[in-house]
């Protein structure tokens, strides 16, 4: 049974890597936000899986619950940010700097 959970966890982590690609490269901040939110959800699941591997899941539920409760605060905060500053994707804001002249 442990091997099953380990395999599941490893798969989730590899998927997290793919999500991280979007979080790092993602052209707009919304892409990054979505990606990080997905990472947060995966974290919640992984916490429970780790709990299963320690054979004592009730001690890990609290942490997972805290994530479930708090994870979206950042999302709402970022949405508030965009409500005030309506520029989702200013040009030239990637990890690479293209088109600097196009900025205001």
């Amino acid at each position, binding site marked *: 049974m442990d091997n099953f959970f380990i395999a599941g966890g490893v798969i989730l982590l590899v998927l997290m890597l793919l999500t991280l690609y979007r979080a790092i490269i993602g052209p707009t901040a919304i892409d990054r936000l979505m990606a990080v939110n997905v990472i947060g959800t995966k974290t919640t699941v992984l916490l429970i899986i780790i709990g299963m591997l*320690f054979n*004592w899941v009730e*001690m890990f539920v609290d942490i997972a619950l805290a994530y479930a409760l708090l994870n979206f605060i950042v999302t709402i905060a970022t949405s508030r940010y965009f409500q005030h500053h309506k520029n989702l994707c200013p040009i030239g804001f990637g990890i690479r700097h293209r088109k600097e002249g196009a900025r205001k």
Partner: protein
Amino acid sequence: MEMLLAKYNYWIYVTLMMIGIYAMIAKCNLMKKIIGMSIFQTAIIVFYVSIGAKKGATIPIIAHGHGVAHEAVRVADYVNPLPHVLMLTAIVVGVGTLGVALAIAMSIHEKYGSLEEDEILERQE
């Protein structure tokens, strides 16, 4: 594989620490310096928590309750709790420093209209 794993954690903490130090020294933007500072602090936490890890041990909460028979506690069953305690303190200190650093950075921005170190120094003259 075991050889690679034996010190893997320590190598990674050194890497994180180097990233943090580099950001604190080389980055011009004050926010980036603050992010570097946070990474630096987490690197230390990684180091300490790695000290506390113990093979084949479970989390440092002693099994108890109605279903569990009371027997002598075996030391090998529980990871070392002391580094965890120390690092709880370090996380708290980290949040405190973060708040103060952000507050100072915001005052600087209000005063000089910029977060770039060289621009601020230019405007101070």
